[in-house]
Structure formats: structure tokens, C-alpha cells
């Protein structure tokens, strides 16, 4: 319920889960983008000021007006939904059906930054993201886009240790939820300190033979549930 997962139903009948980025990472990415743009403007201003005053001034107005829109649109299209700031934070823009962003949506959401920035402090953007289930600012609503985390490669190192345990069937029949909990424990147990591991494992009293270390017994059950081969 409070997960920031956005499920997209693919035509194949599968729910694909997107992990939505909230206001904080997006604000950081946006601030980085603004900083990058201003640095570019600053460097543009130096040679432009050297030009004839009127040409340079006029050109600067143009660079500024177009840069505010062209910079994000160009990067979102060429960088697969990531401006430089978003790349730093590890988020990307996609359509709300999970597909790659195209230029129409990118143009719309970046033109509407002006509306999101009202009244001067991005209050509209923050308000819109707060009431939206998908953290969409006004421009996202109009363009039909969401900002999601770029998927990190899944971590699997912890699971390997649990597989070493000698598999043993559980003492009682387990419901699906309980099996899932045990699998999760097996996968993550190496991340805990031994004392904490033991403490957590002791909670599963119906499964445990008294006397023996609880964590090892649970690891064995988890290995059984994973379907690990019995060591020969």
C-alpha cells in the first residue's frame, strides 16, 4: 500500500513494476540540471559579450529561451529519458505505460515546467506530486509520464550462503506467505550480524527444535524451500 511501485499491465497480461522516484531525488536532479544550464549560459555569455553588444545580447535571450526547453528535451530523447541531473541521481522519465519517452511527451512536460514553477517556488509541482499517487508534477500529468528509478542490477550475493546449508524439510506445513518469509530470511540472513540473525530466527518457534542454533535450522528449511540439492 505504501510502496512506491507503479504497476503497468503489459499486453501479455503481466504486471510490470516500476519504482517511482519521489519529490526529493527529482528536486536534486532538477537542481543539478539548473546548475549545469547556468554554467553553460555563463560560458556562453563570455564570448557573446565580446561580440557586438546588440547581437550578443539578442543571442543570449535566444539561448536562454530555447535552452530552458531544448536542453531537457534533447537529453531526455537522446539519453533514454535521462537529463544529466537525472543520470547523476539514477532516475529516468518514461511514459506512464512504461515505454520509452518520445518527443511529444518530452516537449510537453518540459514546456509545462513554467506552470509547475508557479508561484515562484515550485509550489505547484510539490503540491501536485504530493497528491498524486505516482509523484507526477503538473507537466507529468499532462504529458502522461512518470519518473522512475533506473533499475539497479539485482543483488544476489547474500543468497549464496544460504544455499550452502543442508536442506531439511520444515517440521510443519507452511502457508505460501510463511514460505516466502523463510526464503527472504534465507536470502538476506548473511546481511545480519550473527547475534541478530539468531535473535530473528528464534521468533519462528513452531519450526525449531530446542537446543540447536535457530538460524542454522531456518537456513536449512530455506534451502529446502529453494529446492537446493542435498549435498552428497
Amino acid at each position, binding site marked *: 500500500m505504501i510502496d512506491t511501485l507503479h504497476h503497468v499491465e*503489459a*499486453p*501479455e*497480461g*503481466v504486471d*510490470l*513494476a516500476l519504482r517511482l522516484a519521489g519529490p526529493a531525488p527529482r528536486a536534486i536532479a532538477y537542481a543539478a540540471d539548473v546548475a549545469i544550464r547556468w554554467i553553460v549560459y555563463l560560458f556562453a555569455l563570455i564570448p557573446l559579450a565580446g561580440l*557586438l*553588444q*546588440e*547581437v550578443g*545580447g*539578442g*543571442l*543570449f*535571450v*535566444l*539561448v*536562454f*529561451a*530555447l535552452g*530552458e*526547453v531544448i536542453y531537457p528535451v534533447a537529453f531526455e530523447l537522446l539519453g533514454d529519458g535521462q537529463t544529466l541531473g537525472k543520470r547523476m541521481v539514477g532516475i529516468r522519465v*518514461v511514459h506512464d*505505460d*512504461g*515505454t*520509452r519517452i*518520445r518527443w*511529444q*511527451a518530452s*516537449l*510537453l512536460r518540459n*514546456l*509545462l*515546467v*513554467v*506552470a509547475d514553477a508557479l508561484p515562484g517556488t515550485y509550489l505547484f509541482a510539490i503540491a501536485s506530486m504530493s497528491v498524486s499517487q505516482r509523484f507526477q508534477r*503538473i507537466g507529468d*500529468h*499532462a*504529458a*502522461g509520464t512518470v519518473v522512475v528509478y533506473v*533499475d539497479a542490477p*539485482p*543483488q*544476489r550475493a547474500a*543468497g549464496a550462503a544460504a*544455499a550452502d546449508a543442508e536442506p531439511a524439510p520444515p517440521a510443519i506445513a507452511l502457508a*505460501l506467505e510463511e*514460505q516466502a518469509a523463510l*526464503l*527472504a530470511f*534465507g*536470502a538476506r540472513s548473511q546481511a545480519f550480524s550473527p547475534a541478530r540473525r539468531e535473535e530473528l530466527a528464534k521468533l519462528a518457534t513452531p519450526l525449531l527444535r530446542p537446543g540447536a542454533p535457530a538460524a542454522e535450522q531456518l537456513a536449512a528449511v530455506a534451502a529446502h*524451500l*529453494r*529446492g*537446493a*540439492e542435498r549435498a552428497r
Partner: protein
Amino acid sequence: MKQEAFERERGPHWQHFERALNELDAQSKVSDFPRRYRLLCQDLVLARDRRFEAALVERLNALALRGHQHLYGARTRGGGFVDLFLREFPRAVRREWRLCLLMCLFFYGSGGGVFALTRQTPDLVYSLVGAGQVAQMEEMYDPSAEHYGKPRAASAGVGMFFFYVGNNVSVAFRTFAGGILFGVGSLLVILFNGLLIGGIAGHIANIGYGETFFPFVIGHGSFELSAIVLAGVAGMRMGLAPIVAGPRSRAVALRESTHRSVPILYGMTGMLVFAAVIEALWSGQPAIPALVRYWVGAGLWAVVVLWLALGGRRRAPR
């Protein structure tokens, strides 16, 4: 099937699928991709349903998502640049003809009304525009001014071109974006600009500078004023959609209407660039006689109206 058996059996397929994704990322073609994608989707559903470890489900989800993006994300559209401007843009404008009429009424109505009022009560201009700006306008269009009668320096023309484009484009984008407030923002900007332009035109005519002002503005005005009105139309379309949603949900109405007004946005931007070209290269040349400017200006207005009214009629909209 338990998790490890599942991974042993299906693992090679996933690795194969990942390689195919990497090849697709590198723009090469992969045969049999849709079938592999569907198989992967089955694996994902299976892994989720059996409550296999989160890391496994996550991995399959990430693979399926990438496959989904490749399979459904690569929609390309036909029609090049010329097609966009000559056909799709006028079609998009005509689809919103009611809003076009409404915004023209607001813009030219308020402008014309204030023009007539300012002609009668000249002081009205000072309640619309600050005294400093009025003085600046007077200086710009003073027939006896120093720069008048001399050709503009080329550099000034270029500088002004960039300035006009930059300034007008940001005004137009703001006019559009203001529409998100249920159309009110666009409406106010259009109304305010109409009042401003009408008031200044009236004042310039009052003090007898019309002979420099009107030949100057008639040329680029055709594209520039129309573009601002169209920015208002696109903004209104977006803002009104959630109010008059029809049979759709309000969120869907907003998204669809906004996407429908995209051609108006790029068409309008193109018009502003063209207007600035005219303004910098043609309107600013005082050597051309006023009569020629009037005729060319009228011709440009006719071009805009005919373009938007007739463009892309022959082939049915896709």
C-alpha cells in the same frame, strides 16, 4: 517446481534474452524476440505467483521491462518536416476552430476595442502602459528620429532577430503553460496582450506616428499575432479538457487533449521564428515605400489564413 530447479531450467533462456536486449540496445535486429519476450513474461508471473526470492523476481521484472520498452516503445511516425508544417499543423488548428474563433475574439476584440477607446480618450494609454514604456514606443516610431530613413546596420538586424525569437518564444510558451490553470492563464495573457497592443497602436495613431508604425508591424504581425493566439488556443485546449471531459476520465482527457495540441505548439514556434525573420529583414527596412509594405503585409495575412484554412485538406487525416 522449486526455485532452484526453476532457475536451472530457465536460467539459460534469461541469459539469452538479456544478450538479445543488449543487441537491441546496439540497434541490431534480433529474430524471434516477441516469442522470447512472452516466455520471459510467463516466467515472471510464475516466479511472482510462487513467491520466489525478491532478487529473482526483481531480475525478471527488470528484464521484462526492458523487453517491453523495446517491443512497444519504438513507434515511429511517418511524415517529415514539410508534412508536419504543411498538413498536420493546419489540421490540428482546424480541429480547434471553435477555440480559435474564441481566442481571436478575445485578442482582436479587446485590441480593437481599446484602440477605438484610446483614439477617443488618449490618456487611456497611460492606465495600460507605464509612462516610460510609452515614451520608448514614441521614440521607436518617431518619423523624424535619427535612425529613421537610414538602413539598419546588419548586425543590429541579426541581434534583433535573436532577441525577437527568444522573447516571443518564451512569451508564447508561457501563454501555453498558463492554460493549465483551467485555461485562465492563457485567456488572461491573450486578453492582456490584446489590450496592450491595442492601446499602444491607438496612442501611436493619436500622436500621428501611424505612418511609420503600421507599415512596420503589418508584415510580421501576420505570423506573430497569429502565433500568440494559437499558443492561447493550445493552452485553452489543455486547460478546458479536465473541465469538459466528456466520456473520458479527467486525467485521460487532460493527457489526450494536451497531446493533440502538440502540432499547434511546434507550428506556432515555427511561425514565431518566421515572424522574426520578416521583422529583422523586411519590416526594419525604411527604404521600402509604405504602400509596398501594406500590400506585402496584406499578402502575408492572406497566406497565414489560407495556410491554416486549407493546409492538409486533400488527404484525409490519419
